[in-house]
């Protein structure tokens, strides 16, 4: 599907294709972004290299590089009880990152982005505030 949208006088040419079952490629002004449904059924940006083998992700030599967030923040305040990733870990959308104990409940923090862990900013047993950076991605 091809379309154009205009944001603040700038026109963006958009081309949406289904690359594989459940994997969408969105081309915006010749730059490619990839999306797939995560475990919760929501579309999330993915790195097709991590997503599946055999996907034609190297088409035009472009791989996903744009929309993924480079930080994973704590959605709520609490105490980190476990961390499941380390420097160099590849992270997929929907993957369990850490468990945080807050408000008498156990909360599994999952990633909603993709990438490789550059730095884990917190330690187990540490108190974190809401919106505090837990992980920085490359």
């Amino acid at each position, binding site marked *: 599907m091809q379309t154009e949208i205009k944001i603040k006088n700038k026109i963006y040419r958009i081309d949406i294709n289904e690359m594989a079952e459940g994997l969408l490629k969105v081309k915006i002004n010749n730059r490619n972004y990839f999306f797939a449904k995560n*475990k*919760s*059924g929501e579309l999330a940006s993915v790195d097709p290299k991590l997503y599946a083998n055999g996907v034609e992700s190297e088409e035009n030599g472009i791989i996903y590089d744009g929309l993924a967030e480079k930080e994973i923040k704590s*959605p*709520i305040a609490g105490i980190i*009880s476990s961390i499941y990733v380390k420097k160099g870990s590849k992270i997929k959308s*929907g993957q369990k990152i850490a468990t945080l*104990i*807050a*408000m*008498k*409940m*156990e*909360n*599994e*923090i*999952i*990633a*909603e982005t993709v990438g490789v862990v550059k730095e884990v900013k917190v330690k187990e047993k540490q108190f974190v505030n809401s919106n505090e950076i837990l992980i920085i991605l490359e």
Partner: protein
Amino acid sequence: MEKFKTISSTNQKAKELAQEGAEPWTVIVAEEQKAGYGKEKVSWFSPKGGLYFSIILPKSQIEDLQTLTILAAFIVAKTIKDNFSLEPLIKLPNDVLIKQKKVAGILTENIIGKEIKNSIIGIGLNSNIDEFPRELEKSATSLKIELGREVDNEKILEMIIKGLKEQLKTISQ
């Protein structure tokens, strides 16, 4: 309701089913758990005879889920008090005690991205357990040990679920 003879953990199963899109108020109940757990993954003794179940909760505010966790302990204690001549005490927020020994435990777990994706509440009730291993004898008891007779797990389950539904409706309004 999904019934299992044996399961590793009803909470674990509930989380998996919730992420696969199971409906709110789906109940996962097991006759025994091989790897039942409570707070901070401390194991929960779960032989046949006990009542072990987890409920997939509707999407709610985190404050409401915290309130529900606390209310769940009250609901379990009230069910015990109203139906059997026992005097349960609540050890907030997760445990129900009889004569200072644990008879039930509650664990709410949330899966959170930028916002809450799924929430489940798990309850383990020592109902028809005849005896506990030596290391738990002083800290755990069962309804059967206290009453000297068996109780009806299905009826208790029904009452607790009804109580939770009513309470969540009230607090999230």
